[in-house]
Each structure stands twice: as structure tokens, then as C-alpha cells.
């Protein structure tokens, strides 16, 4: 399973990074960045919260 951000949808709200600075960052260009493409099982809850709270529905976690 791989975590990714659709850059055509991302607007740099940064909610993902606030939820988990370990998994996500926001670059100076104002775009979200996945720091850990293959998160650990312990990160599952944060992955779900990041996806649920992205205003642009830009985050996906898929095979």
C-alpha cells in the first residue's frame, strides 16, 4: 500500500502535515509532500485522518 498526493488537486492546506508531521510536509511552493510513502501499521489511524481531512480530497492510500 502506498501513500500519495495528487498534485493537481493539492492546494497546500497542510491539514495532513498538522495531523502527522511524520508522514507529510508542505513545501515552500505551497504543495503537500508525502514523506513516508510506505507507512507502518501504527500510522494507519493518521493516514485515515489525513485523507478524511484534506479539503481537496487529494490524498490516497492504495496498492
Amino acid at each position, binding site marked *: 500500500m502506498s501513500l500519495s498526493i495528487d498534485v493537481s488537486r493539492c492546494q497546500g492546506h497542510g491539514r495532513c502535515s498538522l495531523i502527522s508531521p511524520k508522514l507529510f510536509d508542505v513545501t515552500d*511552493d505551497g504543495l503537500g509532500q508525502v514523506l513516508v510513502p510506505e507507512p507502518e501499521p501504527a500510522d494507519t489511524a493518521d493516514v485515515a485522518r489525513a485523507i478524511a481531512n484534506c479539503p481537496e480530497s487529494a490524498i490516497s492510500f492504495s496498492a
Partner: protein
Amino acid sequence: MTTINDPAALQVEDLAPHFDLFDPVHSERLWEVLAYARKACPVLKTDADEGYYIVTRYDHLRAVLEDAETYSSEQAGLRGVPIPMPPLTEDPPRHIEYRRALNKYLSRSFLGRYTGDVHETARELLDDLVPRGGFDFMTDYAVPFTSRNLARVVLDDSNAERIQRAIAIATRISSEGDPQAFFDMAALAEEFLRDRAASGSQRDDVLSAIVNGTVQGRPLTLEEQVGATMIMFTGGLDTTKAALGNIARHLAEDPGLEQRLRDPEWVKGDLDEFLRYESPITFMARTVTRDTELGGCPLKPGDRVAVHYASANRDDSRFGQADRLDFDRERNPHAAFGLGPHRCIGMHFARLQIEIAFNELLSRVTNLRIPAGAHVETAVGIVLSPEHLPVTFDVREP
């Protein structure tokens, strides 16, 4: 435009088609009208002003804000804009060029260099306010706090006298909504820009980015530079002030909230629930550029659309029990900072200021409350905020 004699007495379905987003009496029924519209007529046509459509549901709001070709930002203010203010009033293809030039200077990492200054601003204000035993949270704290911080970050000038003038004008804009103040600010912005250009300075900040910026291969005109400076400066005034005021009011009215705001993690989740529940900017505007349809409602070129962020953030189909302030909700992808390419450029700066404003305040006081008999006046129109918020408190032991 139909004049209504007694808006308070009408059935909501009879008020809605004449609803005036700027009318104080209509606004007393704002949430009721929006709730009605979301269910019965989500793209609500009103004959207020020259007539416009209020977009009340989250999914429709997103459709509008993601489609800049169909919905132009040229007149991003519902009652127009005094001057063009790029990037706010820009559409593709120019819009993205402005954002690319400016995003960096309002990124969290760039703003880190101003953290000390923002703390200092709060401390200076509180040194004066706390010994008084009570103050107006809006005019005495939120307004000067945001004005000084904005002057520091956007104008970042060593000329102290000129910075003071900027702060004074910003205060007039923010507390009085004085239209003349806006033009005084534009004149001052021109002075700042000319001075920065003449100095040949290669400083790396917002003002230099505007002075040196290019769009479609050519430098910005003076008018574009002034407009960009204006929106970067004024864009953060009423907005951040409103967020501070709305949160402070809850803090003052609900003693249980103080512990929540003392947890440093509050800005990572709770803050967003405050912003969803009471969105500081309730609406902005777009102009339809071609024949289209939204939520079953046909729209034609020239139609004016009010994108209502505050309503979208109360949309039950997006946020369960949306009319409840609920810090435990799982999903909160709110639109308080907008959606799509015009997402608030100052968002990180707003969060930083909010975090520090309450961090400093709560380090000095506890048990914030509204004095018995005091009156909280609320603003009407674009900004959702108290105008005045008298507070008292207990001083914390050092």
C-alpha cells in the same frame, strides 16, 4: 430589488428570495435562511443589490471554486473591489504566476523567522492590557496584534515612522471599515514600493517579490504592484482578527474550553473546528463567464455568484451534525480557507498568529470571561466576528 417591510416576520421561504447578505436585520436570520436554502434551494437566487445567486452547499461550492474558467474572480468582492488586487482578482493563466511568486513568503518555513516578533507583539500588548484588569479583546488586542504582525511580515521596512503609519491605517481599515483608509493605504503602499524599487535592494521578502515580479514575461505594472501589496496586507487584517475574536468569545463563554486551548495540540485539530463552525470570511464572489448549470440552476454569463463558505461548512451532507461545535469529529475538511487555487495564501500566517495570540494570553491570565451586563457587538456582512468583545479575567501567578 423588492423592499421588505419586516424581514423578521416573514416565513423563511418568503425572505430567502430577497435575502441581503449585507443587511443587519436580514443577518439576524442568516443561519436559518442558509439552512433552508441548503435543503430547498441550494443555489439561492436573491434580488438583493443587482441580484445574485448564493451557493450554500459544500459540493456546489467546490464545483465553483475549482472551475476558474466558468467562474471568474475578477470581481471577487460581492459588492465589487475598489482596485484590482492580484492574485485575489486574477484568473488563469495569470493567477498561478502570482501565486508562484508569493507562496514561498507565506510558507510555514519562511514565516519561522518572524515567530519571535509575533510573540513580542503579543507581549507588548499584554504588558499594557493585563494590569488594566479588563479590555476589549477586539480593539485592544486582536486588531493591533494583527495589524503590527502584518506590517512586519508584508512591509518589513526599517523606516519605523512609515511602519507606524501603515499600522495606523490598517487599524482604521480593520476597526472602522473606513473606505478612505483603503485609499490611504494604497497611497502608502505605492510609497513603500517606489522606495524598495529605488533602493535596488535584493532582499528576499514579499515586497521585493512584488517589485521584482513578472507576469506573462513582463514586470508588474505599478497598479498591479499596489493591488498585490494591498491584498497581501489587508487580506490578513479582518480575517485573522475575526478568527481570534470568535475563538475568544467561545473561551469567555465556556469555562471548559480553557484547558483545551492550553494543550499545544489544539491548533492541529480544535482550531479547525472553530474555523468550520464560524468561518471568518463568510462569502466571496465570482462572475459566471459562460452558460452553465449548478445544482439544477441555469446560470448565464454575467451572473454574480456568492460562494458562501460559512454555509458550506454547515452542510450536513459533508459534516455530520454540522450545527454542533464538536472537537471530536472525525472528518473536518472545511472550506474556511477556501478551496481550489485561491486557497488563502495567508493561511499559515493566520494559524501562527492565532497560536501565539492565545499562547501568550493564557500564559498571563486565566478564567477569561465577559463582564456581567457587557454587550458583545457582532459584525455583519462578509466578516463573521465580534466587533467588540469586553473581557475580564484572573491574573495568573508567575
